[in-house]
């Protein structure tokens, strides 16, 4: 166990160079992007002198190296700078918007797993049956429909035609107050506050974007589950288990599914990564105040501090995610030691 704790420590230490790299690259990339924030923020009527004034105020007249040193110094103090477009410190912006994106992404992934994994398992166990075909149809539909299209379609049907869903205008209807902030996840915060009405309202707002994203992520998870299950079920140890008279449920879940989990977890990690970055379209359709739309707006405005803050936050998130996945590998499969790195 000591060795394992040490191995986890080493694995954590390995993330440090990655983060340093991200800081450097995001700094250089934002500077390399076309567009001059000074011109943008000085406004359309600005003359040369006022642009220069804004530039000096932003510190953009200093050499690149000096700018970088200043940026790193601020970072070390936990100061991500101030967003020019919102006027708020970037840290505050991120703290507001990241939970919104995470809540949406996580609930979509949970919903998607709840459907995709049983579907994949059933499709593998009853290969060639109607459920296998259903799986195939869902998977094909899921990947071929772009999220903004399913999003708009769902809004049209459930909000406009049927009136079942609330207006796609953010995380909470304006009738309700934001629950007291603990985690930033409205569903959890409202439960913690014991406010079931707000919980229901937040859930209603969340439903359509969650379904939109879930439909999109269903495909890779269901496909991978089916393939991994098929492979596990054709293994020699399944034959041994059957020959020993174990019940079908035990054979399929205790022996087959546990072995199929590894590729499924890998896929989950990948899906989570790309969904977190790619849900900007869903955020736009549902006016979701998430991190994706924030980043796009910042990028358009050459809002350096905001873009760098976003990239850094995402990098930390990915690194943490990969760490969790690596650790869960070791939990699932005893053959994977940390020391094989």
């Amino acid at each position, binding site marked *: 166990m000591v060795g394992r704790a040490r191995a986890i420590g080493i694995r954590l230490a390995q993330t440090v160079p990655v983060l340093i790299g991200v800081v450097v690259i995001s700094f250089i990339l934002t500077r390399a992007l076309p567009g001059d924030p000074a011109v943008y923020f000085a406004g359309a009527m600005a003359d040369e002198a006022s642009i220069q004034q804004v530039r000096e105020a932003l510190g953009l007249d200093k050499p690149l190296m000096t700018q970088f040193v200043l940026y790193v110094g601020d970072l070390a103090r936990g100061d991500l700078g101030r967003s020019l477009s919102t006027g708020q410190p970037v840290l505050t912006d991120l703290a507001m918007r990241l939970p919104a994106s995470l809540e949406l992404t996580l609930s979509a992934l949970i919903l998607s797993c709840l459907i995709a994994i049983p579907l994949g398992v059933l499709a593998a166990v009853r290969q060639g049956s109607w459920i296998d075909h259903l799986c195939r149809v869902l998977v094909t539909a899921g990947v071929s429909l772009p999220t903004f299209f399913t999003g708009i379609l769902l809004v049209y049907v459930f909000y406009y035609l049927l009136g079942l869903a609330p207006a796609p205008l953010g995380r909470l209807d304006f009738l309700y107050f934001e629950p007291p902030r603990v985690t930033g996840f409205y569903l959890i915060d409202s439960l913690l506050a014991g406010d079931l009405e707000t919980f229901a309202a937040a859930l209603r707002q969340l439903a359509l974007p969650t379904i939109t994203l879930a439909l999109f992520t269903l495909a890779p998870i269901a496909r991978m589950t089916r393939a991994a299950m098929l492979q596990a079920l054709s293994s020699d*140890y399944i*034959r*041994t288990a059957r*020959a020993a*008279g*174990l019940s079908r449920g035990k054979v399929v879940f205790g022996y087959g599914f546990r072995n199929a989990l590894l590729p499924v977890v890998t896929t989950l990690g990948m899906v989570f990564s790309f969904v977190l970055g790619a849900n900007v379209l869903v955020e736009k359709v549902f006016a979701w105040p998430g991190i994706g739309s924030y980043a796009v707006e910042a990028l358009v405005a050459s809002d350096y501090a905001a873009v760098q803050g976003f990239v850094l936050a995402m990098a930390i998130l990915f690194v943490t995610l990969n760490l969790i996945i690596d650790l869960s590998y070791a939990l699932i499969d*005893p*053959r994977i030691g940390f020391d094989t790195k």
Partner: protein
Amino acid sequence: MLSISDFAVSFRTRRGEVQAVRGISFDVAQGETLGIVGESGSGKSVTSYALMRILDAGGTIKAGSAVFDGRDLAQAAERDMQAIRGREISMIFQNPRAALNPICKVGHQLEDVLKRHGRATRADARAKAIAALEAVRIRDAAARYDAYPFELSGGMCQRVVFAIALACGPRLLIADEPTTGLDITTQKAVMDLVRDLTRERGMSSILITHDLGLAAEYCDRLAVMKDGRIVETGPAAALFADPQDPYTRKLVDATPRPGASLRDLLPIEARTPLADHAPGDRALVQVRDLVKTYPGKSGPVHAVKGISFTIREGQSVGLVGESGCGKSTTSSMLVRLLDRTSGDILFDGFDIADIPADRFVRDKRRSQIQMVFQDATDSLNPRHSARQTIADPILRMSALRGAALQTRIEELATLCGLPLPLLDRFPHQLSGGQKARVGIARAIALDPKFLILDEPTAALDVSIQAVVLNLLADLRARLGMTYLFVSHDLNVVRLLCDHVIVMQGGEIVEQGPTAQVMDTPSHPYTRTLLAAAPKPPTTKTNETDTAAKSAAE
């Protein structure tokens, strides 16, 4: 106890129905061991899976009955079968490590079975699982309980599989190739254990194997299967001594055994005289203090610990040992695919060990040293036809092109007994023996002086092994090649080699002329190896053949 009659199994495939078992009948009496012997595709494993009703999807029992203890297994409901499997009839499998759930502690796998059949409760499961491990004579069973299959050796895994099979006290054990992939000493240990424990408990057993020698040693009665039919049954010794069916005779002939020569393995009509081969005096390969050390997790691993030997021109040297003894590492260093840690490899007087393995590709001696690989299937590119495979080394190492190249390829194919129309087939369209011929043709394409054969017949059926071994002997005589034959099968080495090197734990424990090492081994390890090899009963075929020949003359 078990009575099978007119049993037939078929599989639904894309190309229609395939009959795997075509109406077989046999009985197994209480306490009897029946051996089912046959080559791949004979339907012997399918028979056992059908008995247990664990056939893969698409397989069904078409006809016949299998009455076990008054119940017809062919008709029994799935619920009843689940209670019979593991409790009344159980099975052990080939490739024991894959037969265990890789991510589950072996103790828990045992508990699953014990609990399933009501032999243990939550409270006493652990103790009973440990007792079951002790029953198969696993030392320190309590510690092994927490082991995962990957932490155990192949032999130990097979013991665990056996413990699972025995846990609920079944009355019939079906062993499906239980020792394939195990070392010869492990094979003996496992088979002895199976025999002792089934006898102690008065169990019946069915041993399914391709190894006639093994079956003869451990079974009371043998049934020989071919193409889904039983061609002959009888007591093991009688079947060996006087096979009635031509196929049984062919199998008996092809089984390597002391006293038989290479040609004796072939059917009588194919026994042309073997060309003489006499090793020269000049040393072709000299190995001096060869060492290979791998960096390991817990300190360096000494795979080869300073070995020295000489291979003379035209000589065939057998390199023998069990897995992990360093024989594969040694052959990889000799063929220059692996760099040595220290020591010399003199080839024709030149130290080729100094040339790094990745630069040896461009050395002029590359074409002189070639290799035939163990797995005829995996060592062929599945997207290359036989012709492309054979052409590959020629295109890389010589200037032969166009019509001359095609002539050369056809010449090589003819030399290796590969029919020319097969040259444009892909590996999956070729049989195991044909793939072996392609591998050999590729290796000799550049007229090498020195050929390293890494267990070239290990994956082949015994009758095909006989043909391939004879082909190798013919090629040796015709092309004057020098062989290093790496193998774990002493009986095969005896047939082909002039000189034997026995390795254990990275060291050479004994070397000398084949007859001397085999008949009067000096090292205890060599004696253990020889004792562990299954000894087929003496056959009458040799004497009758000589009698027939002399009568004809």
